[in-house]
């Protein structure tokens, strides 16, 4: 297995000005534990992703190796355009990869047919995005029900579970409202409830507070913290250092490679 340090060294000449100071410090860090949170439930090896855009190809991920442990709260950071979201998409099975393997609970998800991978996502993955991505023609509770219905739950069971989950995120009384009738923070809570309702193995959150004011963002982060405290594996992509510092583990992505993988304490020193 290639070490993280080797990779960090290989991309150190391409640091952006914003992160150059942090990058310089990363190089000096020892290789961190690959799965600080326990046994890995996701194990990625040599993951490459190339975007083919007409005349030239862009290598978005360059042979990434990464393990995610059960119950981990992992923060993914890095400069814009360096592959954070691509990493999330490829590891979660949202996107295809060009090389490598991603095992979730021992199953290689990229060798699965699309239908099976879709079913796998339904059962094992939850997603929270910056722009909420609620279905506007469904009410809050109907949005939360979707993963349960996809997983084959009956309408009655789905309704009960969705209501419970909305209660847990503090929106028990807003279930009948459409997304346009909710504030940004409420919409994101609904999105979190939707991501959690089917009890997935991993919840992937891509800039979950990017569209929120600081007060609302704090409330959402607290909620995610509670979710993690309850044992949920959580991967959060963020560009906000203060959010990154809340994790147990920080992964820095730079030019499609893992530049740092270790405790987020380095952010405090930056």
């Amino acid at each position, binding site marked *: 297995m290639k070490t993280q340090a080797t990779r960090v060294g290989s991309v150190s000449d391409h640091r952006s000005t914003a992160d150059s100071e942090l990058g310089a410090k990363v190089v000096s860090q020892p290789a961190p534990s690959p799965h600080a949170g326990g046994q890995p439930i996701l194990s990625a090896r040599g993951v490459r992703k190339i975007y083919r855009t007409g005349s030239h190809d862009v290598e978005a991920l360059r042979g990434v190796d990464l393990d995610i442990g059960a119950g981990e709260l992992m923060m993914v950071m*890095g400069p*814009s*355009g*360096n*592959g*954070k*979201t*691509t990493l*999330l*998409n490829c590891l*979660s099975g*949202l*996107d*295809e990869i060009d090389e490598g393997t991603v095992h979730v609970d021992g199953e290689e998800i990229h060798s699965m047919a*699309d*239908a099976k991978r*879709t*079913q*796998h*996502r*339904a*059962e094992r*993955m939850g*997603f929270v*995005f*910056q*722009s909420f*991505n*609620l*279905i*506007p*023609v*469904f009410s809050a509770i*109907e949005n939360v029900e*979707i*993963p349960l*219905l*996809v*997983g084959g*739950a*009956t*309408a009655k069971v*789905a309704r009960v579970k969705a209501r419970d989950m909305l209660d847990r995120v503090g929106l028990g009384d807003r279930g009948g409202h459409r997304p*346009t009738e909710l504030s940004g923070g409420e919409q994101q809570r609904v999105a979190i409830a*939707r991501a959690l309702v089917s009890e997935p193995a991993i919840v992937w959150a*891509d*800039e979950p507070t990017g569209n929120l004011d600081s007060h609302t963002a704090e409330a959402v982060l607290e909620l995610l913290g509670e979710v993690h405290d309850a044992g949920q594996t959580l991967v959060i992509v963020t560009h906000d250092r203060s959010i990154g510092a809340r994790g147990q583990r920080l992964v820095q992505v730079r030019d499609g490679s893992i530049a740092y993988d270790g405790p987020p304490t380095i952010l405090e020193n930056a």
Partner: protein
Amino acid sequence: MVILIVISLILLAVPLHDLVRRPTFRRLAIRNVLRRKTEAAIVVLGAALGTAIITAAFITGNSFDQSIRNIAKTDLGPIDIGVEIEDATEVAQVRDAVVGDGLPGTDGVLSSVSIGTSVVHPDAPGGQRAEPQSRITEFDIDEARDFGGRPDDTGLAGVEAIGEGETVIVQRLARTLDAEVGDQLTVFAYGQEIPLTVTAITPTRGLMGSAEMVVVPGTIEGVLATAGPGAADARPPSGTVLISNNGGIFDGANGSDAIVDEVVDRVEAFDGVEVGPWKQELIEDAEATGTELSTLFTGIGSFSVIAGILLLVNLFVMLAEERKTEMGMLRAVGLKRNHLTRSFVLEGAAYAALSAVVGAIGGIAVGWGIVQATQSIFADDDGVLDFTLAIRPETLVVGGLVGFVIAGVTAWLTSLRISGLNIISAIRDLPNPRSASRRLRSLVAGVAGVALGVLLTVIGYGNPVAVLLMMGPPIALLSAITLISRFLPRRPVVLVLAGLALVYGATVFQVFPEQMEDGDIEVFVVMGVVLTAAAVAIVTALDKFWGRMISASGGALAPRLALAYPLNRLFRTGLLLGMFSLVIFTMTFITALDGTFSGQGPTFARDLAGGYDMQVRSNPANPITVEDLEGQPGVERVATIQRGFPELRPAGTPEEDSEGWAIAGINDAFLEGGVPLLTERDPAYGSDVAAYEAVLADPSLIIVNTFLGGDDGGPDSGSDIEPGDQLILRDPVSARETEMTVAGVYGGDFVFFGSFASAEAVQTHLDISFPSRHLVKVADGLDAQEVAADLTGRFIANGGDAETFTDAVNEEVQAQSGFFSLMRGYLGLGLLIGIAGLAVVMVRAVRERRRQIGMLRAMGVTSPTVRGAFLAESGFIALQGIIIGVALGLVTSWSVITSSDSFGDEELSFTVPWLALVLIVAIPLVAVIASTVVPAMRAASIRPAAALRIAD
């Protein structure tokens, strides 16, 4: 056309100005058009279909007009005025009187004598060939060739003079007889066989159009001189003096009135002479028929045009929603509201202009299709009435302009509506908040709508004007929704008021029978719009109900998604439903009428036939006698009819209101075994038979057909003719007038009996005594059709033509059914708009929901579920529209057929055409789902990561 050009220029003024002077608007509009080229092309095609339909309606009118006008060439040529002379022996005297010292304004006078005959070509290559209903005409060919000064117009150019025993025949007859120059034909007249040798065959044109066989003058006189005693019962020869006005075939007819007046004066001394401006009447008929058909097709086509407008509005609203955020940004950076409107209008004007050109050209193809279909349904077997495509350049311009104005106005109104966005809401992609000004606008619109509806109702009821009365109350009711829902919950208000509008629309013919009596095609169009608008309002107001249905249906996600979008975009869904249901409503209505009429064939035949199975016509100059028929195998009973063609008008109306209407003189034998069913009779008679017996006993009594008094060719008294009414019967030859009293009214006249009076009355009033038709009752157990075929074959020499009532009725019913099919085909274009429109809407929906589809896929929703949701969504909308249309179509047609006398007084039993209805439901539904397959597949293939476009 001037008005259309002015409106078009007004619509174009701002876009043209902006195109030249406002580079930002120009750039925005052009780049938005080019942004999605395929969809822009579909928008243009959608609008172009409407233009094509309108243009095709006009072209259809042109073609009918021109086709009928062509008869002026084929049947009349140089003949402008005809002087019919009852006594053929007076022809020469009448001609001399007409010519006098010269007839100003004319360039030719020709006299002729003719008789009806049957003709046989015994040595035809494939065996004997016959034409039972022909005629021979005698005139001098050399003189006729110069008639009017244009030999080509006479059809006799290059034809040599003929001698005794020779004939010149027209191509049409030559084809029937398979005859060539030199062949020997046998003509039957007055009980004699006349051998004639064909010396020339001419095109069916001019004088030769009406004179099928020309013989040398004196031939008919010679035949009569040697005729047997039976000739006394035959119709005598008739004479005609033909007059050609100065000028060409068409423009020459213009001066006919003055010449007719002059000729009438000159022949005043003769009895039994009738002068008529034949060509002028023909051209007027052509124009009237062309206009009537153009109006009919425009009216029927307007359903499709309205569907096209709804599609355009829908597409514009979708465009606006897709660009909502960028429009908000444009407003934020300083574009004024009217700038936004103008940039949209510029884009809309480009679509409208392109669609006008494409539609006008497409209209030619549609028009051609209609003409071809009509030709196959109605074309005369003899080829006399040959429908051909005729396109006047101004028709294309008008069609294009109408299409442009419709699309342009739609673009303007939609642009005004969508530019009223709230900047913040638009940028944040939130629904537009209801502002005070919007509330005020809706209040003003509601009050104005109610006031307008009430005004139209009052005017429509008082005057009465059917179309105003049809639209007034629904406008008031639907407008009141915005007013009352300010104080009460909207949903029940919509259900109640739209429900009332629906009930009104469906029952207006029963509620206001007198006021609605004169309603024309536009009433039907308004009725369709009213009913569908009300029904769509009701269905969209039931969104909660559908929501509950979804929940109750279980957990399946595809149907939930399929219904959620349409139910959350009620305006857009309403437009789609309206588009579909309007066209399906009309198709169902026409199909139900077709089914009802087609199903009544045997009933119509039974009601008309009385105690007989068939009618037998023969050559008037060599008629079949009662005795001839009674001796034939299979014939049980024979009744004879003397048929005349008087003019009729209600007593008390001016002479010019008189219209020609056939009359059948009946005798005692007619009543044996039954009589044609009466729909109404004078209460003085206890039964239908009693009414007919009274007619036989009293020459002043008449039984009329239900169409007399309507708009179908008979004298129009403004209301139906009823028992007890007085009619004036005028003999056009003698100008003698007789007052008749209506004893009863009978229904469908499929064999053109006309009116019934006693044979004595027909002889007394019209001086007609020779038999025109015989009615035959076939012996029990025999097949009437076989006997008819046998009789036709046996009486070839007499021009025998036997036809059962069942066949006659079926022929008419099939022609009617064919016309209904043509209408359905024409409406199919509207359905095409609906299907294509829904497909376009689904294509745009895929783009609009790309992120949402990505999210669903991320959450584990499978591709088949996404695909199924899209297919189910389009199917749901189409099915709703189809159900609304079919239900309204059936209810309305049932109401009209069972409660209105719009289709005559007959008791029609409403027949549901199940098979046709299944097709009406299945074909559009399958077509819609098929057309959604591509967008559904596209939606299903969306990759979640790409769709979510999560920025790093």
